[in-house]
C-alpha cells in the first residue's frame, strides 16, 4: 500500500469514526476527497451568475458526462427524505439493478446499504455526520454476487436543499489482489523458512564432512609419509638408489595431499565462518601482510610501491588473507625476474574503490581467465611454480562474501594485475 499518495482529510470534520465493524486500517487514496461543507452552497444555475443559457448548458453537459462515465458508482440522495434522486450507470451495472429500481426509493429500501443506513433513523445519523467513509463494505448484487466497495458520502446544499452524494468504488479486484498478495507472502515466508532449514542442513553436513576430513584424512597420510621415512632410515642401506627415490616420491605425494587437504579445509571454512565487518585500515593490513611474506622474498630484489589506500569496511582477518594471497602470488610469479616490481593501489571508479596488485611477473593467457578463480585450477606446471590452486579461489570467496568482485588483467611474460572491490559496483 503506497503511502505516497496524497490524503485529503476533511478539514473541518473531526476524525470521522468508521462505522463499519469490518473496516480495515484506513487506506489513503484520492478517494478521500474533502466534503463540501454543508454551508457552502453550490450555486444553482441562475441568471444572476451572468452566464448565458448556452454556457450553462455546456457546463451541465460536462458534469453530466462526468457523472455518466465515472468509473465509480455515484448515488445522489435527497437529504431530507433519503430518496434516490439520481444514480449513475456505473453503479447500475455494478449492482445489476435497473435505474427504475433505484429511483424514488429511500436508501434503506434498496437493501444493499443496510450497513450504512438500515432505516430512517440511521439515515438521519448519516446525514448529520456530513462525511462518512467506509474502507471496506460488502454489498450483494442482484444476482447474489458479493462485491466489496469503498463508500464515501458527503452532504452539500444545492439551491437551498441538502443533497447527499454517495461515491461507491468497486474494490473487489483490489481486495482480491490484496488477498492474493497476503497469500503469496505467507507462501514466500514458508518457502524462505524451508530453504533456510535446507541451507542449515547443508551447512551442518558440510561441517560434519570437513570435520571428518580434518580428523580422518590426515592420519593415513602421516602413516604413508612416516613409514616411508622409517624405511629410508632403517633399511636405506639395503635399497638401491632408485628404490630410495621411489620412496621419496611416495613421501612427496603424501605431503602434497596433506597440503591439498589443508587448503581445501581452509577454503570450506571460509564459507562457514561468520563475517565480522568493521572499519579496516587498508594500508595497515597491507603492510602487515607484506611483513608476513618476508621469508618468501628473502634474498630477492623486490621494488614495492604502495599508492594511497583508502580505508574500507570488512572482516580484517579475511581481508588480510586476500592481500596475503595476492601479494604471495605476485612474489611467486615474479620469482624469475631479476628485479621484481610490485605495485599496490586503489582506483576510484564511479565512486567504488577498486584495489589492485600489479606485478611484472610471468603473467598468464587471458583466454583462460575464467578458470583463474576455480578451486584447484592451476595455470603453471607444478615443477615451475608450486601450489595447490586454492589461493585465488579463497580470494574470490572472501571478496564475494563482502559483496564485491575480483578480476584480472594479464599479458604473458609481461605481468598481471588483480583487481577487487568490496562493494557492489556497476559491473557486478
Amino acid at each position, binding site marked *: 500500500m503506497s503511502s505516497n499518495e496524497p490524503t485529503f482529510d476533511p478539514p473541518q470534520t473531526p476524525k470521522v469514526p468508521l462505522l463499519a465493524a469490518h473496516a480495515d486500517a484506513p487506506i489513503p487514496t484520492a478517494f478521500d476527497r474533502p466534503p463540501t461543507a454543508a454551508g457552502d452552497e453550490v450555486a444553482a444555475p441562475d441568471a444572476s451568475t451572468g452566464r448565458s443559457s448556452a454556457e450553462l448548458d455546456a457546463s451541465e453537459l460536462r458534469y453530466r458526462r462526468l457523472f455518466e462515465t465515472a468509473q465509480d458508482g455515484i448515488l445522489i440522495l435527497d437529504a431530507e427524505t433519503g430518496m434516490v434522486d439520481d444514480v449513475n450507470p456505473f453503479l447500475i451495472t455494478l449492482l445489476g439493478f435497473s435505474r427504475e429500481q433505484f429511483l424514488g426509493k429511500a436508501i434503506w429500501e434498496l437493501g444493499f446499504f443496510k450497513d450504512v443506513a438500515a432505516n430512517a433513523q440511521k439515515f438521519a445519523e448519516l446525514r448529520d455526520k456530513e462525511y462518512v467513509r467506509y474502507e471496506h463494505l460488502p454489498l450483494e448484487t442482484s444476482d447474489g454476487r458479493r462485491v466489496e466497495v469503498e463508500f464515501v458520502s458527503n452532504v452539500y446544499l444545492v439551491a437551498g436543499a441538502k443533497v447527499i452524494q454517495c461515491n461507491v468504488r468497486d474494490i473487489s479486484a483490489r481486495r482480491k489482489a490484496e488477498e492474493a498478495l497476503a497469500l503469496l507472502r505467507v507462501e514466500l515466508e514458508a518457502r524462505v523458512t524451508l530453504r533456510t532449514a535446507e541451507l542449515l542442513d547443508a551447512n551442518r553436513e558440510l561441517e560434519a564432512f*570437513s*570435520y571428518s576430513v580434518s*580428523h*580422518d584424512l*590426515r*592420519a*593415513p597420510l*602421516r602413516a604413508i609419509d*612416516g613409514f616411508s621415512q622409517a624405511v629410508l632410515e632403517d633399511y636405506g642401506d639395503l635399497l638401491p638408489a632408485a628404490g630410495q627415490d621411489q620412496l621419496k616420491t611416495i613421501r612427496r605425494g603424501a605431503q602434497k595431499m596433506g597440503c591439498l587437504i589443508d587448503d581445501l579445509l581452509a577454503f570450506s571454512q571460509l564459507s562457514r565462518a561468520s563475517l565480522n565487518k568493521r572499519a579496516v585500515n587498508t594500508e595497515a593490513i597491507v603492510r602487515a601482510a607484506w611483513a608476513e611474506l618476508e621469508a618468501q622474498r628473502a634474498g630477492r630484489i623486490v621494488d614495492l610501491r604502495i599508492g594511497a589506500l583508502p580505508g574500507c569496511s570488512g572482516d580484517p582477518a579475511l581481508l588480510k588473507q586476500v592481500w596475503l594471497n595476492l601479494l604471495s602470488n605476485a612474489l611467486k610469479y615474479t620469482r624469475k625476474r631479476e628485479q621484481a616490481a610490485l605495485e599496490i593501489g586503489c582506483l576510484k571508479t564511479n565512486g567504488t574503490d577498486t584495489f589492485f596488485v600489479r606485478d611484472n611477473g610471468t603473467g598468464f593467457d587471458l583466454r583462460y581467465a575464467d578458470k583463474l578463480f576455480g578451486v584447484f585450477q592451476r595455470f603453471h606446471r607444478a615443477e615451475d611454480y608450486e601450489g595447490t590452486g586454492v589461493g585465488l579461489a579463497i580470494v574470490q570467496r572472501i571478496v564475494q562474501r563482502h559483496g564485491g568482485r575480483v578480476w584480472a588483467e594479464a599479458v604473458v611474460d609481461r605481468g598481471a594485475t588483480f583487481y577487487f572491490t568490496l562493494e557492489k559496483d556497476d559491473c557486478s
Partner: protein
Amino acid sequence: MKRSDAIKLLLVEDNPDDLALTLRALGKANFSSQVLVARDGLEAVELLFGEGVHSGRNIAEELKVILLDLKLPKLDGLEVLRRIKGDPRTKLIPVVVLTSSKEQRDIVESYQLGVNSYIVKPVTFERFSETVRHLGCYWLLHNQPPKISE
C-alpha cells in the same frame, strides 16, 4: 617401560600407525622408558583413576604430562579431558591435545575444558618427529609441574 614409578608421560592414542610414529619419535629423543600408552579413552581414565583392570594402580601422582588424541574409541578425547580437569586428583596434570584436527570447535572446546596446550600433528614425518621431541623435552625436562598431594 621398566618400572611404573618411572612413568612420566601418558600417551593416549588409538591409531596404531600414529602410535608407532609417536613412539619412534619419543624413542629417538630417549623418552621411551617414561612412556605409558592407553589405547582408548576408557583405558586412559581407568589408568588415571586406578579403576577397572587397573585398580590399585596409581600413576597420576608421577605424571608430568598427558598427550591426548581427540578421536578415540569408547570415550572420546574431549570427554577424557573433561574428567581429568574435573577431578581434584588429576586436574593439575598438564594435558596436551595431540590431534589431526585443526577445527576451531575442537580447539575452543579443549581450551574451555582447561587443556594446557593444543598441537596439530604435522603430516610430514620430520616435522612430526620434531614436534613430538619438542613436546617431550618441554614437558618432561623444562616444565615444572605442581606436586600433587591428596
